[in-house]
């Protein structure tokens, strides 16, 4: 054992952690969730709520025994020490914890029936787990402002607030924008946006996620859905090349909200407001229909059109007159299979397009990057690059189209408008568009195949720093929309190329991608959280593939 680590016991279980680890984190490591409100792994310790009190006994080397605790200590504040004994569940601790609950609930309005947090509220869950006693209060509860807008996206309810300071620490230490503060004192204390100020940074919605109670609610989610009706699917935000890991909360056919999911090294616990609003863009998408506009072949089915495209591709084997442009929204697996297919067919004019440019925020210090597309890095890594010898890159392809040298152009994915205008495309004899978005080209292309969106299919994306994240299917795809990977398998078959992978899973294995390999070992999902609470799902790490 090195001097940099300490070994202590948590409820009898021994655990070794680096020196300086807080007891509450050591307990997480040992698989024990110590109840807490103000503690958050992404924020500096504050130690104000006292919910994490535990019986913490230090080892006295001279007396050669553990010193009995004089009083309960807060596990989120105390550093783990060598040979320390921590008890988190003794009758005394439980009693003290129940007292903390009683104190926190003294002035709480308990308006759970109309509170958006109900069902994922730590106060509710912990009350059920640790208190369960009726209120002894006979006096009128303290009244505070209840409908205070904090900027356009957040509404504050002072009566529900337990003054844990998570939100103020977020604006102080994470965004460093310093909008929120706790003003006044004692039972008059409330969270406030400074008079004349605004709460408008790009990450405001995170405060509502980390608020342990329903004091901060999002205008976008207020009164929209009871949380227990939500289904949760692990996903990834495509809003920029950060690839924030998310949870899509939906009802199967419609996304209700998007929440961040803990992923160390990518987005930690946070995501930006723009990423949360992406579902609105998704809901408004005009979806294309399978179309074939070739004389004598009109009106095929999706699979007959796919076969036609595959055969057409094979016709252009080794030809200089075919080119493929790919959107940076393609998944790694699709990109890998597509580049394999084109490699076999020796179609070398292949490149990634600019993709989406609308919604490009300036890159900031926290998360947002300046590329509002998820998978440029992954697509390139998976082989969407011009052939080394004779392949043309996007600019050369454009020049070739201009010069009338390209007869067959395959466009994979949406958002090519920034590279190719319809006039340019009219110079190509056969344009095949495989996309999830209907646009001007869909009206003219020789063939259109409808694709499933990021919310409707499985895949992985790789962010600009090389971290791979996995998104899963949340929504039922509209009738006819094709899974990108399946479609590519069919294209392979039609083009007479044997696919190197039997399935998506197989592809992921062959790609040697383990989207979860760089997920930090300590993730919330491993802890014994109250299972009925949906809240913790949003802090869970990536699960097994």
């Amino acid at each position, binding site marked *: 054992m090195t001097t940099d680590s300490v070994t202590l016991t948590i409820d009898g279980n021994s655990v070794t952690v680096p020196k300086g680890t807080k007891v509450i984190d050591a307990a997480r490591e040992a698989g024990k969730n110590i109840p807490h409100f103000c503690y958050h792994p992404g924020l500096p310790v504050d130690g104000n709520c006292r919910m994490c009190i535990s*019986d913490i*006994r230090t080892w006295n080397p001279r007396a050669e025994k*553990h010193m*009995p*605790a*004089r*009083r*309960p200590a807060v596990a989120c504040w105390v550093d783990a020490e060598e040979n320390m004994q921590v008890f988190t569940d*003794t*009758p*005394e601790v439980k*009693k*003290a914890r129940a*007292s903390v609950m009683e104190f926190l609930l003294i002035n709480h309005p308990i308006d759970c029936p109309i509170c958006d947090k109900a069902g994922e509220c730590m106060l509710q869950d912990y009350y059920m787990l640790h208190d369960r006693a009726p209120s002894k209060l006979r006096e009128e509860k303290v009244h505070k402002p209840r409908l205070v807008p904090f900027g356009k996206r957040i509404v504050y309810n002072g009566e529900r607030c337990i003054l844990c300071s998570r939100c103020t620490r977020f604006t*102080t230490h994470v965004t460093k924008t*310093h*909008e*929120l*503060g*706790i*003003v*006044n*004192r004692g039972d008059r204390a409330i969270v*406030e946006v*400074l*008079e*004349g*100020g605004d709460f408008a940074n790009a990450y405001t919605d995170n405060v509502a996620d980390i608020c342990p109670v329903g004091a901060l609610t999002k205008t976008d989610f207020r009164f929209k859905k009871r949380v227990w009706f939500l289904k949760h699917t692990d996903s990834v935000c495509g809003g920029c090349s950060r690839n924030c890991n998310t949870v899509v909360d939906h009802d199967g056919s419609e996304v209700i909200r998007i929440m961040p999911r803990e992923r160390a090294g990518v987005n930690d616990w946070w995501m930006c407001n723009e990423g949360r609003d992406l579902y609105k863009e998704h809901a408004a998408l005009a979806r294309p229909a399978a179309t074939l506009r070739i004389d004598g072949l009109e009106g095929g089915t999706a699979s007959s059109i796919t076969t036609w495209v595959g055969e057409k591709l094979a016709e252009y084997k080794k030809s200089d007159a075919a080119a493929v442009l790919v959107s940076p929204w393609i998944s790694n697996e699709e990109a890998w299979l597509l580049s394999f297919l084109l490699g076999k067919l020796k179609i070398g004019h292949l490149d990634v397009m600019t993709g989406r440019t609308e919604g490009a925020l300036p890159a900031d210090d926290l998360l947002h990057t300046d590329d509002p597309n998820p998978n440029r890095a992954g697509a390139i890594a998976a082989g969407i690059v011009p052939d080394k010898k004779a392949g043309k890159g996007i600019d050369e392809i454009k020049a070739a189209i201009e010069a009338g040298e390209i007869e067959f152009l395959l466009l994979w994915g949406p958002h090519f408008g920034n590279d190719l205008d319809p006039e340019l495309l009219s110079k190509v004899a056969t344009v095949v568009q495989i996309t999830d978005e209907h646009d001007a080209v869909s009206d003219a292309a020789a063939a259109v195949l409808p694709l499933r969106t990021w919310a409707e299919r499985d895949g992985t994306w790789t962010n600009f720093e090389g971290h791979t994240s996995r998104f899963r299917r949340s929504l039922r795809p509209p009738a006819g929309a094709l899974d990108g990977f399946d479609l590519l398998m069919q294209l392979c078959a039609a083009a007479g190329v044997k696919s190197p992978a039997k399935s998506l899973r197989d592809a992921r294995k062959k790609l040697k991608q383990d989207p979860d390999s760089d997920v930090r070992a300590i993730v919330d999902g491993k802890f014994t959280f109250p299972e009925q609470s949906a809240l913790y799902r949003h802090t869970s790490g990536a699960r097994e593939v």
Partner: protein
Amino acid sequence: MSTLEFSAAAKERLEWLRTRYPKEHQRALILPVLSMAQREFGWVGPEVVHFVAAQIPVPAIQVEEVATFYTMYNKQPIGRWHLQVCHNLSCSLMGAEIVLEHVEKKLGIARGETTEDGEFTLIGAECLGSCGTAPMMQVNDHYHENLSLQDVDDLLEKLRATPDQEANPADLPFGCGSGPSRALPRDGARLEAGRAVHVPHHGETPVTHEVAERPKEAAGQPVTDAWTPQGMAQ
């Protein structure tokens, strides 16, 4: 931008105060600079909060947090004379409510209000540490103790007749600890304002408290209920 500006004396004091706190803890300047600002501008409204924040500099919200936490910072404009009548326990026993009502009637204002002519602001204050000479009131920086209603009447008249005085730079705050030149009298003497201050100094017998012995740990048996709150023992 704010048009506020500190006086020359305050500016000088501010620079001196800066040297009193480590570089990484300049935030600690909030308290003394706020109280300096209150002296200079009368109250600490939003404009003053931003001004103070810019002086230190810290984010304005941190100044607001401090300014609203302490009741001694005036978040509203106050009159020329700030009457703070103590109405905590000792003073109440000695008739603080009568004093308060008397002042209210006399000035025609309720607690928390300011007279129309801007002369007086009246508030009920919590214990001002002068219980031995209750009832009492603080007027601006000075204590007036052992009040009778006659005293109050006289005092109010006297205050009305007192002209504004030049600000005294010596009144500017020194922050935590003592200032360089204004050590308090060491013999427990009365300060000029009539406030009885007892300053303990070396050589005085310190007050001691009996410390109860803690329960002994039985052999091998950890004392688990050492901190069980009273009345909650199993």
